[in-house]
């Protein structure tokens, strides 16, 4: 890229790259798996209280279980049901992508398979597994089957 050959800011040599600059790079599939591993982890971290809330409501009593179940249809408080479903769908994707990408890490650790080609094909496999399972569970969540 042309930008890279330009001298960096004279005011601060070696300054950190700005996010807008970082977004100019076209990522290979493996890099996309990597950054989404991070994004999905952060998403689950920030939604952790919601996850614990769902656990709390779903197991505490039959009454709380009904509250949990109706959150997906009638909504909860000011949040409509479809928004609850969308957030849960995002969590499903985040979990599936994070877990699949994590197993890919374990597989690479165990087999030392770190060639460019294997990195590419395992990244494609990671996306295939996580996206197909997300679509299937998402269809179930939204009552398509």
């Amino acid at each position, binding site marked *: 890229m042309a930008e890279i050959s330009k001298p960096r800011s004279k005011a601060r040599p070696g300054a950190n790259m700005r996010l807008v600059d970082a977004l100019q790079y076209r990522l290979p599939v493996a890099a996309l798996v990597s950054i989404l591993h991070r994004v999905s982890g952060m998403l689950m971290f920030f939604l*952790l209280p919601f996850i614990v809330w769902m*656990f709390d409501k779903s197991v505490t009593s039959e009454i709380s279980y009904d509250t949990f179940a109706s959150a997906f249809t009638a909504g909860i408080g000011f949040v409509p049901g479809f928004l609850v479903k969308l957030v849960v769908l995002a969590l499903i994707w985040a979990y599936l992508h994070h877990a699949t990408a994590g197993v890919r890490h*374990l597989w690479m650790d165990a087999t030392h398979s770190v060639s460019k080609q294997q990195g590419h094909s395992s990244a494609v496999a990671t996306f295939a597994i996580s996206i197909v399972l997300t679509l299937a569970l998402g269809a179930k969540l939204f009552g398509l089957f």
Partner: protein
Amino acid sequence: MAINYGSKRLVVGAHYGFRDWLSQRATAVVMVLFTLALLLQVIFGGPLGYDSWSGIFAQQWMKVLTFVVIVALAYHAWVGMRDVWMDYIKPVGLRLVAQVATIAWLVGCAGWAVQVLWRL
């Protein structure tokens, strides 16, 4: 003097980065095993409702496993989020605030989850 760096580095030593790398994987494996254990019980536990769902977590072995997973998840998320803050937040004061908030967030969520688990 014995060589204790490179491939011969001391596993129990500090500041190699190895401990975080290993704990991230160990906690991940615990969570994957928990996922499989839960999934099998949901799939083969008959029609899903309050009784069958809460019954899964009422078993003592499942309580123990879930408790271990809550601790593993908190530690796993701590290592991950700390790496994120270290990568993107450079001012030391701001990074400290983010790290302390992360610990408070994780300990709070873990405590809540344990409380839910314990009263079943």
